[in-house]
């Protein structure tokens, strides 16, 4: 390539980064400007005193505290379901599957990751309706159904990243453990997984973000406007993205809209906290796997 070509590509790539950075900065700035005025204990706890709310002495009716709790519960549940399943499936794909099963399963996982969340939501909704009619009247959209649907939604990310992380461990590292007398499973657990932990974490972070953000699935499978703190797997619950959607599509006055923006900031903060937590856990797991005598 000639000199001008080099220069053009270089400038364009820099420009793309600046553009991207700029849009993120504008987005965050806009959110902050719009939402910051609403960001106070009142947004979260409404008219209930903070201490009473935190110690569950009194219910919060006009704040987003229940929605925050609902979202956290939802993420925790969905991730708890999806991570072990996804890890195991990823391990199978990378380490045990034959060429044929790998390509067939791989194709289906790719397909699954491309399914729009509204379709997954609709499927969860139809499934629970079916159970409602044919098994028990008491089965209805609820936290568990949402968590299962979300787990289904994010599974392909975790499977894929686990698979790729394991497959890209260099051959030299792969045979190190084997040459020392590791069984196949020992090699996976003690050599390959620690080596690929940070990539796997990337997939889990993506999944957490998706669970926190997704509205289409939960709208159909159990999120409601008002439910109080989540106290049962089999009841409806409040969730932040749904709250944001609801309040900003039906706002009566400027304060409510500002509250929507405030809730956005809270949602972002929750995500940031969870990502940090995930990174810390990864460090800890790696440390116990590798450095404990």
């Amino acid at each position: 390539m000639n000199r001008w070509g080099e220069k053009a590509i270089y400038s364009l790539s820099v420009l793309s980064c600046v553009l991207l950075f700029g849009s993120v900065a504008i987005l965050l700035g806009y959110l902050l400007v719009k939402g910051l005025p609403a960001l106070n204990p009142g947004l979260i706890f409404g008219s209930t005193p903070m201490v009473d709310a935190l110690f569950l002495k009194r219910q919060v009716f006009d704040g987003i505290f229940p929605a925050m709790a609902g979202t956290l519960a939802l993420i925790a549940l969905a991730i708890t379901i999806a991570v072990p399943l996804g890890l195991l499936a990823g391990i199978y794909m990378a380490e045990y599957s034959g060429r044929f099963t790998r390509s067939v399963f791989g194709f289906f996982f790719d397909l699954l990751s491309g399914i729009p969340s509204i379709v997954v939501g609709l499927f969860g909704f139809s499934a629970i309706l079916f159970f409602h009619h044919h098994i028990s009247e008491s089965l209805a959209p609820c936290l568990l159904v949402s968590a299962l649907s979300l787990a289904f939604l994010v599974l392909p990310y975790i499977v894929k990243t686990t698979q790729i992380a394991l497959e890209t461990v260099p051959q030299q590292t792969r045979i190190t453990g084997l040459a020392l007398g590791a069984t196949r499973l020992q090699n996976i657990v003690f050599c390959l997984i620690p080596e690929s932990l940070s990539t796997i974490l990337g997939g889990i972070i993506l999944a957490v973000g998706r669970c926190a953000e997704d509205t289409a699935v939960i709208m159909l499978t159990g999120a409601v406007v008002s439910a109080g703190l989540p106290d049962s797997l089999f009841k409806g619950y409040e969730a932040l993205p749904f709250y944001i959607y609801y309040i900003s599509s039906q706002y009566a006055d400027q304060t409510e809209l500002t509250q929507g923006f405030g809730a956005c900031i809270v949602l972002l903060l929750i995500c940031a906290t969870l990502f940090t937590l995930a990174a810390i856990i990864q460090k800890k797991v790696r440390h116990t796997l590798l450095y404990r005598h």
Partner: protein
Amino acid sequence: MTPPKIKIESLDFYYNTHQILSNINETIPENAITSIIGPSGAGKSTFLSLFNRLWETTPGARVEGRIQARFSDSFMDINDPKLSVIQLRRAVGMVFQMPNPLPMSIFNNVAFPLKLAGITEKETVQNRVTTAIKACGLWPEVKDRLDKKATTLSGGQQQRLCMARALVMEPEILLLDEPTSSLDPRSGAMIEELMVQLKPRCTLIMVSHQPDQVERIADQVIDFTPGSESCR
């Protein structure tokens, strides 16, 4: 010459349809250093991988013929499906060309094979790890930093650590694939000296590209240069 430890009879090796080794017949003496020489691509590393069946990790690899090794006074076929490959690899240590410490502490690297073998008794582990590190002359250099990352060691130290890791299982056979080729002369000399010291309790098979090294320490040479079937 010492009694044979390994007998190789009419051995062929293939990667898919590509034949790498054909009709190899060799005997490897016990408590001696056997050196494998030959040009690049001749199949030296492949040959080495036969003794711990590491070639099995390569898809499409296939072996024909017989390799018998003497463990506790009777010869057995290394490729016998009844012989556990895990047990085999615990009795046949291997050191690679590039030092390959695992991304864990110095101590844990050497203790790793013990952990894999289910040897967890603290005192035993402590003793065997210390003995192995001392045997490799690495003790004075690492005794104060056993819990530091192994990758912080120099190349020569890492290679001696890998030797210690291979020795902690007290293998009867030790395979070394160009163990000194990535090291400076001084570290290389240390490894050579260590290999000679190991002879009384080990059968060593070493791939080497350095004629002077072969001259210095090898008791037997197997030449993989095409056309030459020479043995010393």
